[in-house]
């Protein structure tokens, strides 16, 4: 088995991973840093983010205001020290990426422009038309090309973290093009692999969002924090789940039910005004808007379509000029995928899974409880997003925590010894396991079947509204699927670019994470943010002002422990929108 080594290994080549790599290359030029990703970095899912990235920059705004919006948006489950650090470092990180060439939209005088966004009291969302994630990712990727010291392993699929002496010391990965299995030892590993939306059937997420890094960390013994908090974005297209950015509502779009009525006013989100009002109506937080949809559906006021129920997003009153200037990509997507021109027709939308607030538990420097293992971005849970993330905070999060994790990993790596023989023996074991998996000819299950069953279970039981009984049922179903996954048969035994093998490995990652999501949701007997229990409809700060931590057990469901939320200056209060 080929064995390579580096000092800091970044798993995942999206916004957080690339920012972390640059942080190591700049802050610790004597260390070697590598980025390993199962796709080329410019294919990472950061590319599809549309709306914008928040940072305080305009007069009339303040760090405290951004912090308060984030904390209340997260229904007080955010660690306030982390939020304070986040809002403080955000403007500098955003200016840094501007210096690297990010084409932010501008005001006439040349300064960076900002737009309103959901849950924010003040306009602070920087944007690059409505392709912010695309521009940020390409800027970061092209900037990494400038550093000779950043090495890349493109299209290499990580299958296991190597852990020895209580420390993470590298990975085992398959080079997809040749099927070669390699061990890459490292003195610090940073997981930046994104979320796991593909556990659900309707999602804005790309095919590659299977929670690889979260599952790898989980299997290595690191806990997953707040997994029960799954964000449904209120406006996704019905068949494909393609994201219609929040910016469409920020610019003034309305959500209408089948009677053409702006139904959000019935759900304590304020009064309808002709122009968008911050923190009100369509600019409320995503969890409340998605929940409103479900209630409308129960009342029979949504429209039925071939791919489920939907409501209308109306942007016609914005006019062609504003649409083409501020949300041109939205128009392009609607024309292409729904054959609808938002200039003259209403867009059919429904809530779809979009973001995982939960992830690998880290502190405010991106360090997990497993020494040598760091995490940043959607794969991590610091937590700054709490029970519900505000739109445009996650793109900024990539930069702030990508940089923090990179710096911290660099400091740690500089003080470590190289990997010993025990690590290499582990790698050999993993290599043997993969060879056996690839060569196995017997098997009774098909990947697509198990995936469909997982989808049905998760959407039915772990969706926007949950009950204890449904979650119990889901827990045993997921456990059954996990066992059946061991018996998957492959049609493809080639070593060259075997995507069926990787699909099978991804499915097993997703089932592990599904078990963590379901168990965490089952144990949290309250409703907060995006976790809503119809059998426990109230928020319970007495018992649950804590993060859930899911630990993998040898056999049986994950063990759930609780970690109190860090409160500094904003004691828990009522979450108010529209008043």
């Amino acid at each position: 088995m080929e064995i390579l080594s580096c000092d800091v290994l970044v798993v995942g080549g999206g916004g957080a991973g690339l920012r972390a790599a640059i942080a190591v290359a700049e802050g610790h030029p004597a260390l070697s840093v590598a980025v390993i990703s199962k796709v080329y970095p410019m294919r990472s899912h950061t590319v599809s983010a549309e709306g914008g990235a928040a940072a305080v920059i305009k007069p009339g705004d303040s760090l405290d205001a951004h912090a308060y919006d984030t904390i209340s948006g997260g229904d007080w489950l955010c660690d306030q020290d982390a939020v304070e650090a986040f809002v403080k470092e955000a403007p500098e990180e955003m200016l840094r990426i501007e210096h690297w060439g990010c084409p932010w939209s501008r005001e006439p005088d040349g300064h960076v422009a900002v737009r309103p966004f959901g849950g924010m009291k003040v306009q602070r969302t920087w944007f690059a038309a409505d392709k912010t994630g695309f521009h940020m990712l390409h800027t970061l990727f092209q900037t990494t090309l400038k550093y000779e010291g950043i090495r890349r392993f493109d299209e290499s699929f990580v299958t296991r973290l190597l852990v020895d002496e209580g420390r993470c010391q590298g990975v085992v990965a398959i080079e997809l093009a040749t099927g070669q299995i390699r061990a890459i030892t490292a003195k610090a590993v940073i997981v930046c692999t994104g979320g796991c939306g593909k556990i659900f059937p309707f999602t804005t997420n790309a095919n590659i969002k299977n929670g690889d890094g979260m599952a790898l960390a989980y299997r290595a013994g690191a806990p997953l924090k707040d997994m029960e908090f799954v964000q449904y974005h209120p406006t996704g297209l019905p068949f494909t789940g393609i994201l219609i950015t929040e910016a469409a509502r920020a610019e003034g779009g309305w959500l209408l039910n089948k009677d053409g009525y702006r139904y959000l006013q019935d759900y304590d989100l304020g009064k309808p005004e002709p122009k968008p009002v911050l923190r009100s109506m369509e600019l409320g937080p995503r969890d409340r808007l998605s929940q409103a949809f479900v209630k409308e559906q129960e009342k029979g006021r949504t429209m039925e379509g071939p791919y489920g129920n939907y409501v209308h997003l109306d942007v016609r009153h914005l006019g062609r000029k504003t649409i083409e200037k501020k949300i041109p990509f939205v128009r392009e997507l609607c024309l292409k995928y729904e054959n609808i021109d938002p200039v003259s027709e209403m867009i059919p939308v429904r809530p779809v899974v979009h973001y995982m607030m939960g992830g690998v538990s880290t502190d405010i420097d991106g360090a997990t409880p497993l020494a040598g293992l760091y995490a940043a971005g959607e794969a991590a849970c610091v937590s700054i997003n709490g029970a519900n993330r505000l739109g445009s905070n996650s793109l900024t999060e990539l930069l702030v925590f990508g940089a923090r994790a990179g710096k911290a990993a660099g400091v740690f790596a500089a003080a470590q010894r190289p990997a010993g023989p025990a690590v290499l023996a582990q790698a050999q074991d993993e290599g043997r396991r993969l060879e056996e998996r690839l060569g196995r000819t017997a098997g009774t299950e098909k990947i697509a079947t198990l995936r469909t069953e997982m989808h049905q279970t998760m959407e039915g039981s772990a969706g926007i509204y949950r009950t204890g009984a449904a979650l119990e049922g889901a827990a045993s179903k997921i456990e059954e699927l996990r066992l059946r996954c061991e018996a998957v048969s492959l049609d493809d035994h080639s070593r060259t670019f075997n995507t069926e093998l990787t699909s099978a490995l991804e499915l097993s990652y997703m089932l592990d994470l599904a078990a963590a999501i379901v168990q965490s949701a089952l144990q949290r007997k309250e409703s907060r943010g995006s976790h809503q229990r119809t059998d426990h409809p109230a928020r319970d700060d007495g018992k649950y002002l804590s993060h859930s931590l899911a630990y993998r057990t040898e056999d049986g469901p994950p063990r759930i422990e609780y970690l109190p939320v860090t409160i500094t200056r904003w004691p828990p209060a009522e979450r108010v929108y529209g008043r």
Partner: protein
Amino acid sequence: MRQTVGVSVARYRPEQEAEPVFQDYEVPFRKDWVVLDALNYIKDRLDGSLSFRWSCRMGVCGSCGMMVNGQPKLTCAAFLSDQGEGPIRVEPLRFFPVIRDLVVDITDFMRKLKKVKPWIVRETEKPVAEGEYLQTPDQLDAYKQFSMCINCLLCYSACPIYGLEPTFVGPAAIALAQRYNMDSRDQGARERLEILSHKDGMWECTFVGECTKACPKHVDPAGAIQQYKLASAAHWFKTLLPLGSR
């Protein structure tokens, strides 16, 4: 209204075949299905051994470029109903080495991308604490179109020059170089000109124009290259003048 449509897919398994062969499948015909949906149906239900790249399925990641009926297309944006009677022919992107089935090797492009220095080059850096570089909306418009490239490489498959001379830097790489040249914050035009005025650079291009036709994001790489040639020629004339810039 037809129920199914034939899809003829190029297969190449290096352990089994010396060159690609076509394999025929029958997939459901749905009016909102794209070619990518058909390929996923094949992989999920008919033949798990079909390998292809895809990710975002909304035309922004650039992974799913393939030849559909002889034309380079993003399969996530090519509706089955637009591909004619069928069988629909799906092949790997032309002019790239084929690793497996519909997967091609793009390391040549990755190398060329790095070569053109696609980052902001500054003689003097402005400290972040001093705020953003000012850039008016008109200055942003000057390069914005060229910044829309998703690196899908359809333009390389459309360019016969790249097919005949694989050392040609190629449309997307040159367009990205021009994107930075035209960015008011960049000061690296001279360095890039050095690189791209050599053999295999912009002058290999003979303005066939197919790259712009194939581009799904309206980047207009042909325009970028011709504009670059004009700027480059103007710069060269200036160097001939007695007090001209060097």
